């Protein structure tokens, strides 16, 4: 997994609450058996005027000029600024895959849906929770200033605005460590293999029916 340390990124404001994972990447793209290549279909139904399908070329599709991601001033953005409960709905990890493939590496919102929040960390994306009033202010600043960029420093746990104001955010220590170092969760878990085995041995005594298996 990609390491995350300091990101200096152009901000794109998506002014909606409850953006669900169906909106982030519509269901027809979930038929893919690959992890990569979802970026062009990020927010597909909002971004294009026609209907997208997997396998269809996206180059000549008509763009929706009103959708924020299509506005010239936000091209190349890597920080997504949005509202409450971002990433609600389906657990599809295709949502962070699409964001990452598009180039979004940090997302700032007053709150996130649990499963999505968790999925971000597995894919090198940093979801940042800031106070709703602060988010509101960032929206205004971003909309008023073309080229508005924020510096996200994971180690220091700060978001710094162009005027030099530094805003602190919270992040779980374990997740921070793994993201800073790009560590693979499975490798870390397997370090506990003895404990897993011991747990299984104990459980086989206490609750043997849990080990009778699905293979009858």
């Amino acid at each position: 997994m990609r390491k995350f340390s300091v990101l200096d990124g152009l901000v794109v404001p998506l002014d909606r609450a409850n953006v669900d994972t169906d909106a982030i990447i519509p269901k027809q793209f979930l038929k893919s058996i690959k992890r990569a290549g979802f970026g062009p279909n990020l927010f597909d139904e909002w971004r294009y005027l026609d209907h997208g399908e997997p396998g269809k070329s996206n180059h000549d599709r008509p763009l929706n000029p009103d959708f924020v991601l299509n506005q010239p001033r936000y091209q190349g953005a890597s920080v997504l600024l949005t509202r409450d409960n971002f990433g609600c709905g389906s657990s599809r990890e295709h949502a962070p895959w699409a964001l990452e493939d598009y180039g979004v590496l940090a997302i700032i919102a007053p709150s996130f849906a649990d499963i999505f929040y968790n999925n971000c960390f597995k894919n090198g994306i940093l979801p940042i929770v800031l106070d709703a009033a602060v988010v509101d202010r960032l929206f205004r600043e971003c909309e008023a200033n073309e080229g508005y960029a924020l510096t996200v420093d994971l180690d220091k746990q700060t978001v710094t605005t162009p005027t030099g104001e530094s805003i602190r955010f919270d992040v779980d220590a374990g997740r921070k460590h793994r993201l800073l170092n790009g560590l693979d969760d499975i490798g870390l878990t397997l370090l506990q293999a003895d404990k897993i085995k011991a747990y299984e041995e104990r459980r086989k005594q206490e609750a043997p029916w849990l080990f009778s298996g699905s293979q009858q």
Partner: protein
Amino acid sequence: MALFRMPGETLFKKLWDAHVVHVEPDGTTLLYIDRHLVHEVTSPQAFEGLKLAHRTPRRADAAIAVPDHNVPTTDRSQGIADPVSRLQVETLDANCAEFGITEFKMDDIRQGIVHVIGPEEGLTLPGMTVVCGDSHTSTHGAFGALAFGIGTSEVEHVLATQCLWQKPSKTMLVKVEGQLGHGVTAKDIALAVIGEIGTAGGTGYALEFGGSAIRALTMEGRMTLCNMAIEAGARAGMVAVDQATIDYVEGRPYAPKGDAWDQAVAWWNTLHSDADAEFDRVVELDAAKIEPQVTWGTSPEMVATIGGCVPNPADASSEVKRHDWTRALEYMGLQAGTPIAEIPVDKVFIGSCTNSRIEDLREAASVAKGRKVAPNVKLAMVVPGSGLVKQQAEAEGLDRIFIEAGFEWREPGCSMCLAMNADRLEPGERCASTSNRNFEGRQGQGGRTHLVSPAMAAAAACAGHFVDVRKE
């Protein structure tokens, strides 16, 4: 004698403690997973990751796989027509064969929606930790299990280690006391709860549903309720084990037998929150006051009662909400102030992991019996949750009732709940749906979804518009 005693434990804590493998200093816990349900959409990349790292499943016997999201609900003898969908299902078949995971394939009578077949086969048991790469895994909490949805990286993690890293959730008790009115169902409780706490109200919490109205629900009803916990933002929903739970599980193909059964029941009978357990939050609802619910917007919290009206954004409690409501009404093609009972429907969908079990079909059939689908309704379809539900319904003659009324009777799968197969809404079409999400485009691009109970959906199909099932 101790001078004080610890407060009692919540069901969540009992389930959590029974599965702790290791705890990091900051409280992050390695939790053991008893049952892993696998379907075709969120697993291919996990199996691929496993293979790339030269790993194998730690316990193939703890996993069970089924294709459900992509499968056709019409004639299956020709296989899946869409080559992309077909490849995904074939990939699941190949991965299960390679790693020795039991799979109920498309032509197996036990095939169905993953959250229907787990309980039906006794693969979901009280006291288990149950995960699946699907957010509606919360359904299985109805059995006094700790069940939650995970992403694909975690699917791979569970395959490789049989564990997950978790932090304990906060706990919320949703207490529903009293008796539900005639024609009011678990689905209406679920929507009423979401209307009360909002779609993010449960974020960070594990919900426990309790109170006399919950104890009076059948297991099907409890599954409907726990299924919708995720729509309130909670990854897990649960109901304490009682006799109804045990009666449901007994005799299921994968349920324990003989001595193991007695041993299991002895433990399961302890799986309830102690009377003096403390919750981080308690929400109380009066069952008698819950009316049949209909969503009017693009989020499950945008819900009204059948006697109500489409609300006015001017009345929203905040600027952000006003904005959302305005957008939702525009998308839904609705005017503020329109009585819910005057909204006509184009299509009706009875199915999904929320409401496709036998009891749901019985309720819908009892409303449809002897009636006809209204002429303005282009399509009314019933999609049973599994092959066994379908078989049972046919044995009871429910299929005849539906077909005679003008409904289509389909093969089991997710179908128009998310429209990944051929079943979908056309732009602008309005649907009364027993599923769980009314998001923009969920049932087809531009489609307009109103979430309701099975009885309310059947009533809407026959009336051509929403109608109070209590007056039918």
